[in-house]
């Protein structure tokens, strides 16, 4: 099956050579646009255009298309936040202990 996947991957770069000059036909068509052509921009198309111009819609689509990836990313994010909080807590605790130790000799000095 791996070979099939390889061939299908190569096939992405393959195009069909049209018999007629398709470019010329398309250019002719867009040079002679009439009112009937404007009907091609129906509600379905306008909705598609609107969605493609929305960052939120495109992001949601990306998440829907790769839910596992985004779930892993979210979990990794949570882990990083928890880890940072843990490191911060250790740092604070050490600072507190350091502060206490620093105060200790000075209290001895006071007694002398």
């Amino acid at each position, binding site marked *: *099956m791996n*070979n*099939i*996947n390889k*061939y*299908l*991957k*190569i*096939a*992405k*770069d*393959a*195009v*069909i*050579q*049209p*018999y*007629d000059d*398709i*470019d010329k*036909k*398309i*250019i002719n*068509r*867009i*040079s002679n*646009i009439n009112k009937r*052509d*404007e009907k*091609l*921009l129906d509600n*379905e*198309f306008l909705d*598609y*255009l609107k969605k*493609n*111009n*929305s*960052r939120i819609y*495109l992001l949601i689509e990306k998440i*829907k*298309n*790769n839910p596992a990836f985004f779930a892993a990313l979210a979990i990794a994010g949570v882990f990083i936040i928890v880890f940072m909080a843990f490191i911060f807590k250790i740092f604070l605790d050490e600072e507190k202990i350091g502060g206490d130790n620093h105060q200790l000799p000075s209290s001895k000095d006071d007694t002398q």
Partner: protein
Amino acid sequence: MDERALIAKSKRGDKAAFEELVRQFSKYVYTTAFFILRDTHEAEDVSQEVFVKVYLSVKGFRGLSSFKTWIRKLTVNTCIDKLRLRSKTKDKKVSLEKITEEYEVVFTRFDQSLEKSFFNKETVKEVLKIVVSLDESYRIPLILRDLQDYSYREISELTGKPIGTVKTNIHRARKIIKDKLKTYR
């Protein structure tokens, strides 16, 4: 001139820039339409329709996705609409007869490893021939997944079939290609 500059110029109404976009993407649109519809005339019609839609709406294209992605989805949507219309109006046996139509496959990207191996190139052409001959229920999901990079979810939404069915059909389509390739050799 690069794609972005051409789009920017097209947005300002530069027709020559739009014509250059047509020349860059017409074969891609035509090929996508041909693989889905298996009909050269319908593929031509779809290509024209897609570019008319793009021409009339390019001013509203913000470029959040690439132009190729935009035009690809537009082509696929237009083809799926045609297929739905065809299933209502045409006998499926009629459309199947058109598989025998000859077409020439060319490679757009110069790939040295591919160029080195004539065998690879010919095998890819054989694979595409088999893809075109596949039944619609296998062909469309396979094309969308393997040639157009659609997700299973998107294919499921487009074809109106459950994701499980889409996955099964793609797997079966790949197996058919594998088995048929063996018989060719």
